[in-house]
């Protein structure tokens, strides 16, 4: 059950992230911070949800690359994620993430792959009349489907679709640059897909996700996220996910995000709260 190889890319990604600031960069055409960070699905965003922003600071005629690793320590579980994403011309984002979920009680693990495609359809986060509007697709595949089958999930793989809109106000509340992001997601995922897709107690297929953030300085942003989740399994209860975060952008090539996440009941364990730490390197 324990798959030591499954997150073996993490140390390499970490290394890449650390050396990224030393490499001369060409994809820095947007303002620091406007590329956000890397979400747990690998797509550019906040932490628990993808945002309409595309990863890295690449603008038109630029190609950007990000790599990240994230560790979340909940009461009864841990979630480790590592991944990378590319941004072509601030128009198309491709992302990949490997998730490894560990049940502390018995050290059992569930790994999952997430492949993402996101396209900026219209608008711009900072400028003009339209908010930045993006559409995305996430293809998810469990590497350890046994648990999902045991709890009554229908599939061990699934596809999420989402549309996302984000707007930043340069002179926002308290004269701080602030952002609001709203997503509509079509998903059958149980606990991000870690417990499979679909179930015997089919719930809503369309979920709302919201994020708000504010830059206190040019380098430090605070914010909160909310993610509605379906509750498809009769045997297990699933709740919404929320988080509050602080992100630090010391330069255009590196960020550190800390969060407190409140994920509700997971696999029968009530009130799963904990700390989330993520680092991202960008080229």
């Amino acid at each position: 059950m324990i798959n030591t190889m499954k997150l073996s890319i993490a140390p390499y990604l970490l290394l890449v992230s650390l050396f990224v600031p030393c490499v001369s960069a060409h994809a820095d055409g947007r303002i620091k911070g406007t590329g956000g960070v890397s979400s747990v699905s690998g797509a550019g965003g906040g932490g628990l949800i993808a945002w309409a922003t595309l990863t890295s600071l690449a603008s038109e005629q630029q190609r950007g690359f990000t790599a990240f690793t994230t560790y979340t320590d909940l009461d009864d579980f841990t979630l480790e994620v590592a991944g990378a994403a590319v941004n072509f011309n601030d128009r198309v984002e491709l992302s990949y993430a490997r998730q490894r979920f560990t049940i502390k009680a018995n050290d059992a693990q569930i790994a999952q792959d997430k492949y993402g495609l996101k396209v900026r359809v219209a608008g711009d986060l900072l400028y003009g009349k339209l908010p930045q509007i993006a559409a995305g697709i996430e293809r998810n595949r469990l590497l350890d489907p046994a648990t999902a089958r045991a709890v009554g999930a229908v599939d061990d793989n699934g596809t999420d679709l989402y549309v996302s809109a984000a707007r930043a106000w340069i002179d926002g509340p308290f004269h701080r640059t602030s952002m609001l992001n709203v997503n509509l997601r079509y998903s059958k995922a149980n606990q991000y897909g870690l417990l499979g897709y679909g179930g015997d107690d089919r719930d809503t297929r369309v979920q709302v996700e919201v994020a708000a953030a504010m830059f206190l300085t040019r380098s430090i942003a605070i914010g909160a996220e909310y993610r509605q989740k379906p509750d498809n399994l009769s045997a297990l209860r699933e709740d919404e996910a929320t988080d509050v975060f602080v992100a630090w952008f010391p330069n255009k090539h590196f960020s550190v995000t800390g969060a407190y996440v409140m994920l509700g009941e997971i696999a029968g364990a009530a009130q799963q709260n904990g700390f989330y730490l993520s680092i991202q390197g960008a080229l």
Partner: protein
Amino acid sequence: MSVISEFSFSKSFYALTLAALLSACSGTQDTENLYTALGGEAGVEEIADNFIMEIAYDDRVIAYFEDANVDRFRQFFIEHLCMLTDGPCVYTGDTLIDTHVGMNVTVAAFNAIVEDLMAAMNKAGIAIGTQNRLLARMAELREQIIQM
């Protein structure tokens, strides 16, 4: 199929309401004249001088200024900044469209200039809130500078 379950809806509604309230605050009017907040004539001149130095050392944008007359740029930038911030000035330069036409200013170059201006304001000791009041007004001019 209920699109949004009732329980979840209440929470999302609160989140959206909170967000709406937050953005409503952004409409708060500050009484202090922006030109005064930037330090008046001396402040705007310091920002302009810092800005010119930032541009001079910025490989990303310096090519756009190869044929620029620095004294003329300084004068019109100060006038424009003064006018834009409700200062007691009349801008006597050409329109922004005329001054930027044919330059093919890219998105990346525009944002680089914004960063140079932020650095110039930091060096002049301008508070971030005041910086943002100015940057928001300047952002409105983007379409006149980047001719898509």
